[in-house]
């Protein structure tokens, strides 16, 4: 009798299971449905990875990279930059160097970002992060007939002292360059600097000038006499 009950029990269990299978396709099946949702992401952190930030915080650009760049920045316009420097001319196709093409050879750069990034990556990073910031900046792109690239940046600070202070730091950091970035032929004064810079094999001929509360920097991507660059910068910086 006991064995009969047992047999009946087994048969019932199998029958129930078969019905369940027919209905659901089994305990883990989702016939005719979408796959299960993806598992919750599991991000694990090393304890130290949650430590608060330390060190200098560089300025962060706030502009939308999707936006077409402006062709003016405060009082700075295309006239503030030289249109031609020797064989180099303003390059309206050089949007790679500035962002979204705007049909012009100049484009606005956020002042604090421009003055921070233009400082040579030489010397203490704290000095660069804590340096006085420009209020406005405009960048111009150049190209030579041979296809060499050039760049010009004009920045306007709050006052002449700020501009002078920034330019002094600029020269100091140039003098500290070593390793992948080296500077030679440096002729730096309080209002003008000319030099050659080698950045990992890319040679730039450069000049920087100060006038009142403005600083204008020019770099052309080949070995040239930098003195005419300074002259070109002086010819437009006050416009």
């Amino acid at each position, binding site marked *: 009798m006991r064995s009969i009950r047992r047999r009946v029990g087994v048969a019932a269990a199998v029958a129930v*299971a078969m019905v369940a*299978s027919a209905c659901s*396709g089994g*305990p883990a099946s989702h016939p005719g449905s979408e796959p299960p949702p*993806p598992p919750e992401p599991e991000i694990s952190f090393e304890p130290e990875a949650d430590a608060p*930030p330390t060190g200098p915080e560089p300025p962060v650009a706030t502009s939308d990279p999707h936006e077409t760049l402006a062709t003016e920045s405060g009082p700075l316009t295309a006239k503030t930059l030289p249109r031609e420097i020797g064989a180099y001319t303003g390059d309206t196709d050089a949007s790679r*160097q500035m962002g979204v093409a705007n049909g012009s050879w100049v484009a606005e750069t956020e002042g604090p970002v421009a003055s921070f990034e*233009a400082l040579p990556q030489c010397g203490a990073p704290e000095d660069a992060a804590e340096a006085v910031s420009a209020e406005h900046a405009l960048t111009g792109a150049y190209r030579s007939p041979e*296809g060499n690239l050039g760049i010009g940046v004009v920045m306007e600070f709050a006052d002449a002292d700020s501009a002078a202070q920034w330019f002094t730091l600029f020269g100091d950091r140039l003098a500290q360059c070593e390793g992948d970035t080296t500077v030679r032929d440096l002729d730096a004064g309080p209002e003008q600097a000319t030099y050659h810079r080698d950045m990992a094999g890319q040679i730039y001929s450069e000049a920087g000038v100060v006038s009142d509360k403005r600083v204008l920097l020019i770099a052309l991507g080949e070995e040239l006499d930098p003195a005419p660059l300074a002259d070109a910068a002086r010819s437009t910086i006050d416009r």
Partner: protein
Amino acid sequence: MKKFAHALTLGIASALIITGTAVADPTPTPTPTVTPSATPTPQTPAPSPTQTPSQTPTPSTDPTPSATVPPSETPTPSATPTPTPTVTPMARGRFQVKSPILSYYKKLGGPRGKLGEPTSDQFVAGRNVTVQRFKNGNIYWRKDVGHTHVMSAHLAKYGQFGFEHGFMGVPVKGEFRGNDGRSRLNWFEGGTTIIKHPKHGTHEVHGLIRNKWHSLGAEGYYGAPTTDEFKGNDRGRSRLSWFAGPDGPRTIIWTPGIGTHEVRGRIRDTWHAFGGEGGVLGAPTSDEFTGQNGARVSRFERGLIIWTPSTGARAVFGALLANYSTRGWEGGDLGAPTSNEWRFRDGWGQDFQNGRLLFMDNGSYRTQVRTNPYVRSVRAEDVKHTYRKGCPVGPSNLRVVEMNHLGYDGRIKRGQLIVHRDTVGRVTRAFGSSQWESFPINRMSNPNVWRGKDVPMMEANNTSAFNCRPVVGNPYRMSPHSYGRAVDINTQQNPYFDGRRWYPSNGSRWIRQRHGKGVLTGRDPMTRGMQANGFFWGGNWASKDYHHFQVN
């Protein structure tokens, strides 16, 4: 003599009746009660049932060997003293106890001993054994095995299987205490143990299952049986016994052509959920063993079950197993399974530690990747060639994000990106979504491999983020890579134009061919994931930088 013959007839008759019941309906309810998916195995391609599921997995076939010495496999019968014919027979009531039973009866205490008064005279039963019945059991004697006695519950179980006429034959040892200190045992000449446990009842274990049980520690370590041996639900092909292990129920199963193996723990639970030996997995072809990365694994005829503490015991079989086995099983790129397989509209799927494997109804496979990011702080060696004094963001504000990605070979790889700490969330979300959508990435190695040099790194088709460097052609502007807020992806298939030429030189084919493996089109999962998390794509610039994404 007539009385003896009558007793023998009754004994045989009752034995036959009981035996008939036992054979027709082997004791407990062996069939697992949970029924699995009705047809969980995709039709094609059918994996070979004889595949070896692990590259180096069979280290320990007996992970939990007994510390206790099991009883001897072949019980040695005691030397049989020849009965002394001169002993005076002991008359008790209607029955007489005489040689060769008498000496053993006296040794057990006679009528005041555990067997009590005789209830029959001695008689010669089957297999030429001399038997005498007593109130609490029987004494057996045969010249080659000597004296033994079988009592109460053991005797009833012995009777279920036909006494000396059944496969057990004549008792050869007992009754004695088991090496668990709680059980009482009898051994029989046919290689059978009858064991009575105060909690688990009285059951028999015999043959190859008994041998296996002994090799695993028998009642002292492996556990006492909770069933007699019974037919498997694979139409009776296999034979099984269940045991009460210290960590739960265990099964020892013998299958013709396969052998005898044991299944235990969570793996056993899952095996039962899939129908046991009669289900989709079939009978075990291995004991549980330690697989790769410490996983516990049991192989079955048509699949395997893998257990880890974090994933539980999951079965892999069918077409999914066929692919899984080519990828190194639990030690391969998918890791251990975290789910059993499931059916969905277009095929079958299963989740693993590092991703999801899909077998589509059209016969193709697809891998969806779980990136499982690990975020750690940056050490000096991480940025040995990509950071120098003067860079705008120092190591303390950078993080290494180690995460999985789908490689060009369809396998899951582990790579890394170094990003600004405030960009970790965006990057992990963007890569998480794109990898779940199976967007392939060739490699994600530290730029130190190329000493931080961008051109050779682009030629190597590397995906990377932080690298302190100026924008090409512009010493007054730092690349957003210098801040750890830009990512270059699959540089070869997504070249960029610097105003003069395209980089890398080996990527020129993809200047116009904007489709194919790893190509960013603007509609692909990678671009969508990055843009959804605030990144700007350089493919939108007039001068294309197809591999470049940046965020403020």
